[in-house]
């Protein structure tokens, strides 16, 4: 388990305030006005059809209407992370929270990062915009946003990208919102400060954003405590959208919510993604949330990628033993089975991770090689998996029965 916790990342409004003010305000109302202004019914429907076609087009090229940063390369994937290593320095040693993680996020795609506490999923996300606790540092690797490497950027240069290119919806909206400021003003603040808009324009835009996420404009006058949990989470999403970012990162965005509200929020995210052409990174321990919203999933274990690929493939035909175990440990109301699997043991101490495969001590498939050699990442049919059961050159057929005598997976022993 990694030592440091992330309970107090910078508040979004604070980070927004800290950010440089630059850019231009964008809204999708301009096209809507054109369509409404069309005279006859026919013209209106033609305009609407044209708008739909345009929307479909911008969904692929992203629906944002302002210029990309000047060194951006529009022909590369939106975000390419390679060999990312983020370490935390503690008195008792160095915690290798993220240790060689690579992934790609394409335009308009939703990627889920899944794993248990301490697997490095939140650290990976916070590393992208470098809002790590003070003892955390990206020590290696590259983070390329539209071809621009963010790792080498100075703190000042990085501010151009936070919030405007990549924004975050934090878990626990009650703690992330300022309790003594009206919700509308909190959303208006980044627009005003960051995009250099007048207070009036910023407030009007905040009102539009509230309506976009399903909060009546008038409710913007409310203080956070006057809103329900679901409404607060919606307000957080509106705030994340304030500067029209390319990527929205959701860090456990629905974890504290009721099932019905969770379903509403997930649907909202899905709608927004298509409407605004957003790209999403969803971080959660809840595999069902990922199954629900994401195109691809990256399973992380102890700071490394265990398996990554399309959701239907990874969850439908899991290859890595960890993915298999975690899926079986998940209660599924729609399955016939009413049993749950147990994964014996607990994740390794990341100050001193085991050599070889980090899941080996808990794995019922473990072979000798697993405790000695770090498994390379091998790709089969678009699924990347790091496990010695699937060496390069094998056919990558999922293996579900442990080779040889299985380790007793009893619950008797308490985790050490």
């Amino acid at each position: 388990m990694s030592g440091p916790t992330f309970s107090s990342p910078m508040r979004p409004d604070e980070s927004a305030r800290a950010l440089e003010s630059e850019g231009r305000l964008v809204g999708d109302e301009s096209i809507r006005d054109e369509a409404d202004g069309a005279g006859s019914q026919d013209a209106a429907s033609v305009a609407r059809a044209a708008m739909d076609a345009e929307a479909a087009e911008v969904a692929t090229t992203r629906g944002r209407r302002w210029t990309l940063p000047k060194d951006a390369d529009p022909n590369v994937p939106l975000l390419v992370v390679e060999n990312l290593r983020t370490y935390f320095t503690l008195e008792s040693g160095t915690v290798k929270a993220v240790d060689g993680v690579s992934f790609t996020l394409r335009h308009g795609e939703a990627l889920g990062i899944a794993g248990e506490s301490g697997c490095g999923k939140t650290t990976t996300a916070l590393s992208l915009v470098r809002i790590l606790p003070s003892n955390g540092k990206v020590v290696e690797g590259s983070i390329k946003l539209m071809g621009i490497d963010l790792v080498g950027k100075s703190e000042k240069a990085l501010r151009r990208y936070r919030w405007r290119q990549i924004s975050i919806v934090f878990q626990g909206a009650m703690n992330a919102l300022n309790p003594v400021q009206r919700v509308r003003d909190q959303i208006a603040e980044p627009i005003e400060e960051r995009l250099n808009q007048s207070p009036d324009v910023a407030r009007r835009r905040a009102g539009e954003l509230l309506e976009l996420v399903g909060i009546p404009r008038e409710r913007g006058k409310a203080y956070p405590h006057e809103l329900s949990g679901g409404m607060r989470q919606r307000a957080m999403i509106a705030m994340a959208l304030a500067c029209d970012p390319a990527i929205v990162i959701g860090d456990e965005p629905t974890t504290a919510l009721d099932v019905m509200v969770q379903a509403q929020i997930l649907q909202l995210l899905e709608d927004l993604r298509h409407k605004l052409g957003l790209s999403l990174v969803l971080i959660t321990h809840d595999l069902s949330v990922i199954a629900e919203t994401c195109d691809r999933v990256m399973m992380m274990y102890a700071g490394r990628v265990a398996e990554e690929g399309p959701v239907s493939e990874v969850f439908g035909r899991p290859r890595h033993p960890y993915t298999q175990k975690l899926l079986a440990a998940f209660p599924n109301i729609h399955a016939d089975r009413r049993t749950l699997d147990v994964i014996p043991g607990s994740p390794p101490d990341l100050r001193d991770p085991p050599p070889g495969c980090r899941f080996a001590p808990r794995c019922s498939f473990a072979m000798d090689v697993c405790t000695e050699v770090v498994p390379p990442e091998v790709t089969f049919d678009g699924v990347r998996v790091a496990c010695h059961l699937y060496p390069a050159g094998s056919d990558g057929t999922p293996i579900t029965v442990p080779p040889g005598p299985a380790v007793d997976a009893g619950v008797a022993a308490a985790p050490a």
Partner: protein
Amino acid sequence: MTEVARQSEPATEPATESAAEPVPLIEVAGLEVHFPIRRGIVDVLRRRVSGVVRAVDGIDLSLNRGEVLALVGESGSGKTTTGRVIVKLTKQTGGRVLFEGRDVSMLWGASKLRPYRRRVQLIFQDPYETLNPKQSIFDFVAEPLVVNGLAKGEERVPRVLAALEAAGLRPASDFAYRFPHELSGGQRQRVVIAGALVMDPDIIVADEPVSMLDVSIRTELLRLMLDLRVERGLTYLFITHDLSLAWVIADRIAVMYLGKILEIGPAERVIRSPRNPYTKALVSVSPSPVAPTAGERARRTILEGETPDAAHIPTGCRFHPRCPVAFDRCKVDEPPLFDVGGGQSAACWLAEDGELPVAPTTLVATAAADPTPTTTRPA
């Protein structure tokens, strides 16, 4: 339903019990918890009430020995309040709680409650807050023994170690003298369970016991709880917002909404053939780690809006403003729980047709026949 035999304790068996019909371990009849709303200091001083929050608004439940009953509901449904009344942490304003057929609703005060609390234990959601950071594990688990005068000094040791072992902290001597910060989240919750087990209770009321924990640790704890039920004949009232969790561990499921039970029955029936539209919607949105097909997405009912607050409960069926199939009658008349067969009951006018329109259960009859409900209703 798994009935687990337990060595009977004749002394506690009520004398009136007929041999044929076993008395439920816990029976709740017409339970009401209404909290007065007082706005401002003037209201408080004048004892003026400007409204009432009907947190629990007339529910009937019974729990048999060895059974796991899951009480499922969203926040504000009254599920936690119900649990708190059963463990006597909150006073009911109406209705009764029977333990082995005896009315315990008027039992108050530490000394009178002691024997009851020995047998009814509570586990809270957050093991980080339940444990005192300055208290060793041994002291935490031993405390109820001391408070209840069951053991002191050296006598405590074997009982505490046995409870820790039973909760899966082995070897217990390794854990007993540690402090909470030295343990992982799963181990802390095991300590909390040990603290409940040391009293050798009959029933454990578990309020979201695994919500804070990771999936893999969660399953270990659920398995521990189910093993303990077999070993010790424990009964659980399992309070959760997560229907899929209830599906995995419960024999019976009761679905609460705004202080009322809308549906209750065997887990299999409530999940597979829900009769109340609210349960149906909950089941349809309960996520699973399998990507939903287009057909599944289409069949899904995402309810609009949120649960109204319990100070302004809608007329008629309290679910009607959000119900996708509500009709005129629902706005006026509140449906009782209709028995729809197979031990399942649903509070919905649509469940009335073609089934026996049985007025809820015998429990309501007893509650109605009792002219003096225990009440501490605010004036």
